[in-house]
């Protein structure tokens, strides 16, 4: 049992290592290296970069140094903004991203899962068709469409809903209502996906032999569904929710841009359009690390749900 967790952690560390390595060398695969393409670097930055990255060192030494930096949670300075480090940007942007993300994740789970269960139980009834129609719309409409629809249709008619993020809200209304737009845009896709996934997983589980056994044992329908079916049906949902949470907690490039939220998603997009290479590398690694941690958490959650993973294979007769 311990074995399993140790194995998963090692595995995550290995994946993270691969990510760092690949990202580093990808950036250095740019002809002439990431730092020489731009001719007009301010000399101060050039100096910092040289000091930090020892750009004259052999590539391998630079790589080792970078790894060393990452291990000590130092993602290096920005390439374009004097005096700012990648760590600064993350520290500044992450709280907003995480606030919006957390509310969205909670919404997704609290609404998506029950909706999927209800649809599965009322298969082919009106409520199922209605919910699944909405869910299909949800997974097919891109978040920027949802966001703009929200701004043009809803926020325009309900003026108490701000159309862009209020940074330091003066009143309670702004503090709450500023979440509405971003959360709807951010959770639309995943909420729909989770409810569809829950529904199909639930239907699949309800077809299983052990559900028939539970019924044959005279258990009430409530117990059959909420004890025997649900736990099994949630396994694929958990698999999806983990990485999804990672993606949502780190903010969405699109939603943060539309609602002007000063989150790390926006910094990332800005760094991409500015070709701020060190920030791109650093942010990528930060994202990937968070993602990998979430995948690891999924593996742990898996083990809680499924004893086959927790306890390993057959102990014999």
């Amino acid at each position, binding site marked *: 049992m311990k074995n399993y967790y140790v194995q998963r952690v090692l595995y995550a560390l290995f994946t993270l290592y691969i990510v760092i390595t690949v990202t580093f060398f990808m950036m250095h695969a740019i002809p002439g290296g990431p730092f020489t393409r731009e001719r007009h670097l301010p000399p101060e930055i050039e100096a910092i970069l040289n000091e930090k990255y020892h750009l004259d060192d052999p590539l391998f030494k630079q790589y080792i140094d970078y790894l060393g930096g990452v291990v000590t949670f130092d993602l290096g300075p920005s390439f374009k903004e004097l005096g700012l480090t990648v760590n600064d940007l993350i520290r500044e942007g992450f709280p907003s991203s995480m606030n919006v993300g957390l509310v969205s994740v909670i919404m997704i789970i609290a609404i998506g899962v029950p909706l999927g269960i209800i649809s599965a139980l009322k298969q082919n009834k009106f409520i199922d068709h209605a919910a699944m129609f909405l869910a299909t719309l949800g997974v097919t409409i891109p978040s920027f469409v949802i966001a703009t629809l929200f701004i043009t249709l809803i926020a325009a008619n309900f003026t108490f809903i701000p159309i862009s993020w209020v940074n330091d809200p003066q009143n309670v209304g702004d503090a709450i209502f500023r979440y509405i737009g971003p959360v709807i845009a951010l959770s639309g896709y995943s909420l729909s996906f989770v409810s569809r996934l829950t529904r199909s997983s639930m239907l699949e589980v309800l077809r*299983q*032999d*052990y559900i*028939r*056994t*539970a*019924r*044959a*044992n*005279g*258990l*009430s*329908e409530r*117990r059959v569904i909420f*004890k*025997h079916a649900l*736990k*099994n049906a949630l396994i694929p949902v958990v698999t999806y929710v983990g990485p999804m949470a990672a993606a949502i907690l780190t903010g969405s490039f699109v939603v943060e841009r539309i609602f002007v939220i000063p989150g790390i998603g926006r910094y990332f997009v800005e760094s991409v359009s500015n070709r701020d290479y060190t920030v791109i590398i650093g942010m990528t690694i930060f994202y990937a690390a968070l993602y990998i941690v979430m995948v690891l958490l999924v593996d742990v959650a898996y083990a809680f*749900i*499924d*004893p*086959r993973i927790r*306890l390993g*294979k*057959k*102990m*014999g*007769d």
Partner: protein
Amino acid sequence: MKTLLEINNLHTSFFTHLGEVQAVRGIDFVLEEGDILGIVGESGSGKSVTSLSIMGLVDDPGRITEGSIVFEGVDLTKLTNEQLAEYRGNDISMIFQDPMTSINPVYSIGNQLMEVILRHTKMTKEEAKERAIELLKMVGIPEPEVRLKNYPHQFSGGMRQRAMIAMAISCNPKLLIADEPTTALDVTIQAQILELMRSLKDKINTTIILITHDLGVIAEVCNKVIVMYGGMIMERSNIESLYDNPQHPYTRGLLQSVPKNVTGKKNRLIPIEGSPPDLLSPPPGCPFSPRCPHAMEICLKEAAPLFKISDTQFASCWLHHVDAPEVEGYVKVAGDENE
């Protein structure tokens, strides 16, 4: 002897998008207390659907369209699902074919076993646990206190089937339905499980319906037999008459496909030439007629009634009709006296 279960003209169909699949088409039989009834027939002949109909567990596009299932004087087809749930696992319980998939993988054996006990009795948790350990011991699982905490994947197939039997007998059912309980198991384990069931029958004094592919098993364990084909009863008989004097061509076919020497336990059916009928649009006559060596014009038009061969033997075959040609081994039964 007292009648425990009486099934009259049972029809069960699945309403699929292709049309109505008539899985069971008019079945009647009576079960007395203490019987061990064997139901035998090829795959797809409606054995499982019959037993699920008794349990009220026919899955969704399916439902009982006609007939009654009277258990101790109560017609189960008239009950609501909640009322039926009181019977299930309590008075009537069922063991399924595939022990690998029939136990919930995410809960421990003890959890699932105690759940059934707590559902149908007024025991406390501790008492239920005692009872669960006792049951595991009864079905021959060593170290029951330890095994109680195990999960299904830690059990072998045979052990899981024992655990399922423990669940099924936990409330001393009056009727125990076992749907091919040994088909998925190794040959040596099969014999052990059958032996276990036979010994349990005496211990808890229950009536059993044993569904199987295997006529050899029926010969060893049962006192009555029903031979099913295409959702209908072909022959119904007590055990001796069926083996000594089979009165339906299908039964004969089945018996011929069983090796005569019973040294090897693996008496699987070798299917008779041809394939089972399509129950979606079954031809009007006897379902076996397309494969029957003695098929007559009438067999393609009408299914035969159950001709009474003796007090304990009935066969649904036109060969028993007075007007039918003589075939060796088939008895003629007098026609209607009103003629």
